[in-house]
């Protein structure tokens, strides 16, 4: 789909502008075109995209390119950091009052955004994490069975629901509910209001009145994460009428990129506080700006690679591993370490996917994360002496059989692993004696050795050459 095209386009851009020390105007322009497109595809509002990319451009100008990154990656990093900064920031999750016996939260939003479900989820969350004693208030008298829905939600979560049926004005429901909260000792009142269009003046007036009556500490706008360009209109209208204190983004368990989050934050300044992440009534989370940024930018693969390449691999560890390999004394203990390093970077197929041009291969069934687990199992079934001195195994078939039955793998697999280590040692030895250029070439040969158990074809091994540890 579009996203894949984008990723490959991005890689093209990367290649073109590689090998510079500083970001210059044309690099940034080039990258910004891709960023802009990506944000638009994520449903970020057109005007927001424009403002945002202009701002980031300013920031990126003359920025030093970090070691290990190319200019394109650097731009993506800057964009991502800005997105996180913009959507994050310090805000209290929920302002609980101490001026009266209860805190009031008012849930507002368009029809179908998920107010009723989210009201329940939120009450559950605040009971669990803030030891609150919530009361849910059914103030949606319009949608058929909205009250029944809230009652069911309340019953499932064992949270009391206050309702007065549908033949009563919502304003009066709220007045009565507050009295009830006080008499029942509920220190949290969550009001579920009816969904309405932001242009429906009568219903918006009703909300304004409810606000006057309940004086809520929080007015939370529930927004469907799939919302398109209109998100800005909706949020602006609700905010102008009510002074919204926060946003809850729902249906984030879908495959939407969720650009509405950025649009709303940028245009109204209203912070996003929670996200709805599933069908279960406990599927609510505190909003994570980092995850959202990655999701909206849609360049998660590039970002993870940037992050992981710069952080996760301990350089010292890698260097000593390198020396060990070069010396030809590489043994199973080292292989195990190597495996762990790879694992720390994430699923094997996932890593492949992050490498330019390797996406397709990673999706092929041949690369199997399980293989790494199997190799580990085999090594773990060896004695300490066998791990350090692979020759012991090479010489004794009974040792090999023991390791096989101990690890639950076949003897053939054990043999293959031993053969692989041997090949790798030889390869390394040869490489250490070569000059750098030939060594580079030989690398592609090194991995087919590993290719036995991982079942890689030699051609595919090349991409993995990136992990020469």
């Amino acid at each position: 789909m579009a996203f894949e095209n984008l990723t490959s386009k991005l890689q093209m851009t990367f290649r073109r502008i590689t090998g510079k020390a500083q970001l210059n105007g044309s690099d940034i322009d080039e990258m910004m075109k891709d960023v802009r497109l990506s944000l638009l595809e994520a449903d970020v509002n057109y005007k927001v995209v424009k403002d945002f990319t202009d701002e980031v451009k300013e920031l990126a100008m003359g920025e030093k390119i970090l070691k290990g990154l190319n200019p394109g990656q650097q731009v993506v990093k800057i964009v991502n950091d800005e997105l996180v900064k913009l959507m994050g920031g310090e805000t209290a999750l929920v302002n609980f009052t101490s001026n009266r016996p209860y805190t009031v939260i008012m849930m507002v939003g368009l029809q179908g955004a998920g107010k009723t479900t989210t009201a329940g989820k939120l009450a559950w969350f605040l009971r669990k994490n803030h030891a609150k004693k919530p009361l849910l208030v059914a103030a949606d008298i319009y949608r058929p069975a909205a009250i029944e829905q809230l009652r069911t939600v309340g019953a499932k979560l064992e949270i009391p629901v206050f309702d007065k049926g549908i033949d009563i004005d919502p304003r009066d429901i709220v007045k009565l509910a507050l009295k009830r909260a006080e008499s029942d000792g509920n220190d949290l009142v969550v009001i579920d209001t009816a969904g309405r269009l932001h242009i429906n003046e009568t219903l918006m007036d009703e909300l304004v009145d409810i606000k006057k009556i309940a004086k809520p500490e929080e007015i939370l706008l529930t927004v469907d994460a799939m919302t398109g360009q209109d998100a800005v209109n909706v949020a602006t209208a609700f905010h102008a009428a009510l002074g919204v204190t926060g946003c809850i983004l729902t249906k984030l368990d879908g495959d939407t990129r969720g650009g509405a989050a950025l649009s709303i934050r940028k245009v109204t300044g209203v912070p996003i506080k929670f996200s709805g992440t599933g069908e279960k009534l406990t599927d609510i989370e505190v909003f994570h700006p980092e995850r959202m940024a990655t999701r909206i930018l849609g360049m998660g693969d590039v970002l993870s690679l940037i992050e992981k390449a710069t952080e996760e691999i301990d350089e010292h560890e890698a260097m000593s591993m390198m020396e060990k390999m070069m010396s030809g004394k590489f043994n199973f203990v080292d292989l195990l370490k190597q495996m762990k390093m790879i694992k720390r970077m994430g699923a094997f197929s996932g890593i492949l996917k992050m490498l330019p041009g390797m996406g397709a291969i990673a999706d092929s069934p041949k690369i199997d994360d399980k293989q790494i687990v199997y190799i580990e199992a085999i090594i773990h079934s060896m004695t300490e002496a066998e791990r350090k001195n692979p020759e012991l195994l090479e010489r004794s078939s009974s040792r090999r059989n023991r390791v096989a039955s101990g690890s639950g793998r076949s003897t053939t697999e054990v043999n293959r692993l031993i053969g692989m280590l041997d090949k790798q040692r030889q390869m390394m030895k040869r490489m250490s004696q070569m000059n750098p250029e030939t060594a580079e070439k030989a690398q592609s040969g090194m991995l087919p050795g590993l290719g036995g158990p991982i079942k890689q074809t030699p051609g595919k091994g090349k991409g993995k050459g990136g992990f020469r540890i």
Partner: protein
Amino acid sequence: MFLHRQVIDVGIFAKLFGTKERRLQEQKYKIGMAKTRGGSLSNLKAALYGAKAIDDALFDRLEEIFIMADLGVDTVVKFTAALRAEVKKRAITVPRELENIIVDKMFELYLQGQIVDANIPYVEGGLTVILVVGVNGTGKTTSIGKLAYRIKAEGKKVMLAAADTFRAGAIEQLKIWGVRVGCPVVAKNEGADPSAVVFDAIRLAKAEAYDVLLVDTAGRLQNKVNLMKELEKIDRTIRRELPSVPIVTYLVIDATTGQNGLSQAKLFNEAAKVTGIILTKLDGTAKGGIVLAIRDELGIPISFVGLGEKLTDLEQFDVEGYIYGLFADFFD
């Protein structure tokens, strides 16, 4: 009346909207979509009338306007390319002349050289099953209520099946619609197997000679494999019970939906072949342009639009009315 001819000739724009009758006909859409005046497409007029020449800046501006209507990046790129080609072909230099071309091309985009029939394809002399699907919160149950009202008004015997056994209150909600419209609702308990509800309903509807069975399903996000499998099962159940008749499947899409609408259409269409789209909540400020992208990329037509809260606020999709709504500011 709802059979749309292919529109190719220039000046159709004037013909379409020039008459007073036409305007009255579009009134409904205008009520729905005219509130969007402050929104994106109202800028179209300003863009065309304000531009001195047809240049890149104008096309950028047009792209912006279309994207703001949620037409989708790919469709917009394609659409503006077609506009550029047409401008070149006709050697047009005055921006205002783009008016006609934009409307014409929009028609072409939607019609795709076909005759698009928005009528419900009823099964002659037998039971027509209409399956209504979509993600959470798009307005499936409400649309079913409105559809039932409409179909009943045509003199047909209508039954509803409450196959959303998941969401709290969903069965109740459908039952209330059943009472309002005056048609029976087949339901089991919350948590029951939706296919079993559908099975019972079809048997009953056939036995009692109903004309139409409307099936309400649970909202499901299209990336939830298990829930989509459940939908496939419902679809299979219907097809097994009614082997030789076409099943009508409507996908309900919220007009505020952005690019995700494409993914919804694609995956729902894979699980249960989608006949048409019901575009809801078009009475807000959202334009629902994603349905044009869906038509463009997947060929699925729009069948109905939801324009309000009342029982009668469901209109058969009329491409002329819709495009009029998109460009309403041209006619002030």
